Structures are given as C-alpha cells and as structure tokens.
C-alpha cells in the first residue's frame, strides 16, 4: 500500500469553532492547513491539522467522525455556512479537497440548533433525534412469529417511496440548515417510510402523533417552508415527506 505524493499541495486558512464544553463560551480560532492535496477528504485535511497541533502540544480539534464513507451519519460540520459543505448529496467525510483551492479561507462550525447542545468544539449532542424515534419510529412487531416475507405483496412504487425516505442517515443536517431548527424532514422521513407500507399502517396515527409530540418537547422548531433541509441533506431526502407528515397529522386530528 505505498502511496504516491506527486500531487500539488495547498495551504488553507481555517477559522474553526473551539469550545471547551457545553457551558463554556466558544470562539473562533485561526489555524493553517499545510500540504493538502486534492485527494484528501475534508476530514483527512483536519487529521493533518490535528497531527500538527498534537506535535505542538496543543489540543486537537474535536469532531465526530466514524465510518468516513457517508453512511453512519455522525460527521457534522457547517463549512462556510453550509451544513456538510454544500456539495450535493455529500457528507463532510465524503467531501474532497478538490472542491477548494490553494489559499482559501474556510470557516468550520458545529451544527447549531437549540436541540443540539455543543459538547466540545465541533461535536454536538444529537440524542434528541433518538428520542423522536423512541417515541414511535417503529412497527411494534415482536421477534419471531412474523409471516412469510412474501405474504403481503407491496407495490414496487410504494416500496421505492418507502426506501427513498428510509435512506435518512440521521445526521441532523436538516436541523442545522433550518432557520427554525426544525426536525420535520427527519421525523417526516420516518413517518412516511412506515406509513407507506401495509405493515406500518396499523399504528400510523399513533406514530405520527407521538413523534410530533416528542419533536416539540425536544425543542425543535416547526417548518415554514424554507426547504433548506432538503438542500443540505446528504441523502437527498425530499420535502414531500414533510407534507406527508402534515397529512398524517391532519388524519389524526380530523380523520
């Protein structure tokens, strides 16, 4: 696995949010990223910066990252004002430095939302998203005793619609991008995924109601049709699922 280092390198000015803890004041710190090639991912660029900081005896930038292939949903940075950096259908970990050029100044901030307290630097607590799912984001089936998988045919368009919604990785970019800090795209996607399937119909009303209630209690705002969420979503989750959420909610109220 020998690499090759013949790429042209870039030097970048980073203006990074640093914050010791949830109750500490935060501030921007200016750092320099050196020897970055176009093939570095954004997080690998931060790795380089962190290695330099550690060697200088300074504390490296804390940021959430794990799978680094765009599926675990943990990476979460606002880059130059855009959640995940603004490349379509791309998480921070999949963003590559060929999207930047030598000498660029890059602002890096955490997700900012009332429901997501900052833990340290760029790391936030997204437990509220788990709370919404726990409120009803499931079908109450028991382990064992399920009928044959082919017992209930599901029209292909319904299965595809459900899958479109199910692709959500729970990163919270929709919340970070929303001026109201709303989690309606996240919640709507789960409600729609399950409501579109016959096995999810049984509890559809209770589910919508419980999840909306949890969403509000967690301190998320409401949708006022900015559509920033869809633009920021690395999985292209469509705002039509918010419409579906509203429809399901109306069915509860008037259905």
């Amino acid at each position, binding site marked *: *696995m*020998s690499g090759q*280092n013949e790429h042209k390198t870039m030097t970048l000015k980073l203006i990074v949010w640093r914050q010791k803890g949830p109750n500490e004041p935060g501030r921007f710190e200016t750092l320099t990223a050196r020897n970055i*090639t176009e*093939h*570095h991912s954004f997080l690998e660029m931060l*790795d380089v910066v962190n*290695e330099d*900081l*550690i*060697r200088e*005896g*300074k*504390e*490296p930038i*804390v940021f*959430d990252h*794990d*799978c*680094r292939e765009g*599926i*675990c*949903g*943990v990476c979460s940075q606002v880059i130059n004002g855009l959640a995940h950096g603004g490349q379509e*259908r*791309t998480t921070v970990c*999949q963003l590559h430095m060929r999207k930047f050029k030598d000498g660029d100044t890059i602002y890096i901030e955490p997700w900012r939302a009332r429901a997501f307290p900052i*833990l*340290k630097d760029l*790391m936030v607590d*997204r437990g509220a*998203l*788990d709370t919404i*799912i*726990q*409120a009803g*984001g*499931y*079908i109450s*089936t028991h*382990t064992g005793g*399920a*009928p*044959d*998988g*082919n017992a209930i*045919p*599901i*029209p*292909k368009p319904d*299965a*595809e619609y*459900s*899958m479109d919604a*199910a*692709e959500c*990785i*729970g990163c919270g970019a929709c919340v970070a991008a929303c001026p109201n800090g709303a989690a309606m795209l996240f919640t709507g996607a789960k409600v729609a995924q*399950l409501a579109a399937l016959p*096995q999810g119909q049984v509890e559809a009303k209770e589910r919508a109601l419980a999840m909306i209630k949890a969403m509000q209690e967690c301190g998320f705002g409401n949708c006022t049709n900015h559509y920033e969420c869809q633009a920021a979503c690395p999985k292209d989750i469509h705002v039509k699922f918010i419409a579906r959420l509203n429809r399901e909610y109306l069915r509860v109220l008037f259905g």
Partner: protein
Amino acid sequence: MILDGKCPTGPIEKTWDKHRFDMKLVSPANKRKYKILVVGTGLAGASAAASLGELGYNVESFCYQDSPRRAHSIAAQGGINAAKNYPNDSDSIYRLFYDTVKGGDFRSRETDVWRLAQVSNNIIDQCVAQGVPFARDYGGYLDNRSFGGAQVSRTFFARGQTGQQLLLGAYSALSRQIKAGTVTMFPRTEMLDLVVVDGEAKGITIRDLVTGEIRVHVGDAVLLCTGGYVNVFYLSTNAMGCSVTAIWKAYKKGAFFANPCYTQIHPTCIPQAGDYQSKLTLMSESLRNDGRIWVPKNKGDKRPPNEISEEDRDYYLERKYPSFGNLAPRDIASRAAKEQCDDGRGVGPGERGVYLDFRDSIARLGEETIRERYGNLFEMYERITDENGYKVPMRIYPAPHYVMGGLWVDYNLMSNIPGLFVLGEANFSVHGANRLGASALMQGLADGYFIVPYTVAHYLTQTKPGKTASDHSECRKSIEEVKDSTKKLLSINGRRTVTELMHELGTLMWNNVGMARSKEGLTECIMKIPAIREEFWGNLRVTGNGGEINQQLENAGRTADFLEFAELLCRDALHRNESCGGHFRVEYQFEDGEAKRDDKNFCYSAAWEFKGVDSEPELHKEPLEFKEVKLAVRSYK
C-alpha cells in the same frame, strides 16, 4: 486442552430444534430479575438487546457511538442471504449450509452453520415485518440478486444500503424497548474491561466518553457484540472506531481467542491514493454481477483503458474460474488481483489496481439499468476518485474488510468464561476461514434475534440473579486498573502521536500478514511488534486529560490493545502451516497458486489462552468433524 463446542449430535436437520427443546427456560415472572449487559449496537447487539428486552429481561446496552444507529453494520452495502428459494433456482437450507461450509474452506462447525442456514428465512420475515424496505419486483414480491461463492440468487437487498436498512430495523426494535423501559441505553460509552467474579462474567468497566467517568456495570450475563479487529491493518473498510478492545480485554481475563489469523481482504475496494489516507472505501461485491474484472495482458501497458483492445485484455477471473467467473469468492478474487499486480500488470497510481469494467453490461442493459442498480456506488466512486465509472472502467484493489476469527464460543455462543456470550463478527463460529458475501448480516441477526435469546436463558437458569454487587472487590480492582492505564497513557508525554504509531503497526501487518504470509515475514513481525509497543509506551504523546472528551485518549487505548493483539494474530498465522480461505501461506500452495489445505494436521479451530503480554499464549484445539459436507479441495473452476 481439547475444547468441546458442545454441539448437538444426530441428524443435522434436527440438531437446532432438538437443542432448543433440551435447553432450560426462565419463567416469565423471573426474567425481570436478571440483568443482561449488551456491549455494541450493531446488527448482533441491537437485535439481541431488543429481543431480550422484549422477553422481559432487564437489559443495559452500550455503544461508543453517539447513537446506537451508527454502529458499523450500517455500512454493509450488498445484501443478506436467505434460503427462501423465491427465484425457484433450487436453493434450500441444505444448499446454503453446504455453500457456507465450503465457502469457509472447511474450517467452521457444521452444526453452527446448519443453524444459521435454518434461521436465515426467519430473519427476512422479521425484517419485512419491521418495515425494512427490501427491493421488490413489479408484482410486489421480494427481489433477489447473486453474490460471490454461490450459483443461486439468494441475496435480499435494499438498494446499496442493506446493512443500513437492517440496522435501522434492529435500532427501531431497540428504540421501542428503550421506550418501554426494558432496555437502558448508554451511548458514547466504551467498555474497557470485563469483570470476572468466581470464574463467571458479571460485569464490565466502562469509560463515559463525554465526562471521562470510569465505572462498573454489573449484570448476570455479558454479551459482547463488538465487531471485528481488521483495523489492526490501520487502513481498512471498517469505521475509525472499530477496535479489538472489548474482546481483547475479555481475552486478557481468560476468554479464548479463536483463529485470529482468519482475516478477510475484500476484492472490490477503491485503491489507496496517498499516505495521508485514513480509510479505504468498499464498493459492494454486487458490482461483480455486472462488472467484468481485467488487467492489460502486457506488462507495463500504460494506455488508457478504453484504448486497450479486447485481445490485449486479460479477464483473469473468467479465464481462471470459468464456472464462477467474476463471482469467485472473496479470498480467491483478492489473491488473484494481488497476483496480477505483483506480476507487473496492475493499473493506476502505484500500479496497485485492476479494472472493473461496466462497458459490456451498459451495452447490453443500458446505462439507466446500471444506474438503477448501482447508482449510489458510481456516485461514491466519483466523489473519491473524480472519475466517471460509466465512461471509464473503475479501478479497484483488495482491502482489509472483515474477520472470521474472534472469541471462541460453544454452540450456545458462550465463551469458555461462563456468562460471557459473544455474538456476530466478534465470535469465530460460522464463517470458517472465509466468509461468503451477504453472510455477515445474516449471522449478526441470527445470533441476536434467534439464537442468544434461547441460549442465554439456559445459562441464567444455572445462576442466581443479582449475585454480584457493584462494590465487589473484583469491580473495584477493575476500576483501579482502568484508571491506572488511562493515567499512564496521559503521562508518557513523548513525541510520537497515536496515529503515527498505529500507522507503523498497520503497515508492518499489511506487508507481512495481509494477503500473503510467509514464515519469514511472520517471524519478523513477531520480533518487531514488541519494539513498536515499547516505543508506544515510552514515547507517546496524548494531550488533554482523562476527565473530558478526549479522542486521542480513546484512540491510544485502542491502539495499545492492537499492539498486543497483532502479535497473537501473527503467532496464529505462523502456527497454521497450511493455506485455507483468507489465510494464505506462500509455502503452502498448489502449482497453479491455489491454497493448499492440510486436513490431516490442521482440521481444527485454534483457541489461544492469554499467559501474559510478553509470554507466549497457550494453544487449545477444537477438532472439526465433517459428517455432511465431505472434506474436499475447494474448487470454483
């Protein structure tokens, strides 16, 4: 010691049913008196915690991630096998069993594999009931695709995100139990020790990754569902946080480690681009359904791929393995790619790559169909390489991906420490020396939904609930040990970073213990690893302190364990004087380069017992018997 897996006997098709009946039950009223600790929330951990909670046990679930939904099962792309025979291509439980035993190169237990094949169908039903949106055909029925190592289509899938959808299914079941109060969830929590009291597993010591608090959780049984250790190679397809730590701590407390040398190198990954790289990205094996793998026939042919004519291309998998072609199993496909590159016919930077070409299937099916099937993978490839896979053949190269080895368990998935159960990739049980594609998801969910809920009960009937108090001397001792080692890591104050040292270990391991191993290389590694370990403990620099979020400290702990574990992996590889599955020793091969097994001397699972960090571990053997599938040279020609 000769180990006994306590496998049931008699006709194979009755083994699991009979065993289930023979096991004791815990009555519904007594279940809530027992507390079960489940570490890890991947497919195995989430499904186990959810199922046990639902049965009425008192469950505590732990993961290092910020949410149980992020465990690395989420990254599995291709699919999950089941013997449904929906496509009517003559699949059966027996055939899935047969393919898995053969695919594992005859190094797994027949009874365990049978059980896996038997429950595979229940898994699909369970997931459909949970709302997993599997791919369907226009009639509304479940769709299947083909995968490596099988001649039937038995793989169920949800676009290229099957692992994600199955994990979210298990996560939803887990969330439901958290809501119901049967499961208490501890995210951002890492297990750093196993507490053993009077020879039985009764607790774990954890570090709260947010506050830095180190404390013990006690329970009546401990389930480790903590995944694999392939990050020992530094670069792999695993998530950055995947480590050997949980099972290594258990090993150091007496659990046997089985077949650590069985590692899987996945053939279809995006080649490495530079030294700064932090991970390798997998491209689903399903691409091999429609992509053709080739290299230029002539060494040093530097022409762009599309200018290389048909007669100058070598579709080496189709040539060497005509009956399986591009769908040859992973170990074979990986080794074949390495062989081509070693032979000077590799492509791309550093010439470590082969082409995966969709030209012919695009001509046959149209770009739209290929986009529908693999669109997300082509997109991912383009983001990383800046190349368009529809127009130019993709470049791929094998990368460390999965491990078949893990803690030794008996038929009940219990290790040699009573009360310690090991599920999913963390155990060694069913994949032998090589895992077939789409079988990891199957195993994780089989263990968690349909096996451990029964077998853990059998153990619990033999133990009194709440036997250990959290202030037991073993608990206090464990906390002290973890605190000491944390303090030690923070106080070295040397000059090297964790990443540098892990990189050094990984490079050594990849070069000598990766796709091909030799006596010389392994011996060299066993000599060099202690030196890196010494450098680590003498010259490491970790900034910050232990009472806060400290990602370097987390990585340092994991690296410290890899530095011990790597030696065990090498020793196991050195002792196994044969080639089988993912373990290829250059000294043991046929003239055509195929792996040469030695059934006379090595038809056993090797389980190692810890004897001290700087002492040689002791080998215990569990002989393997093949009554159903006859031992034979594994051929895919």
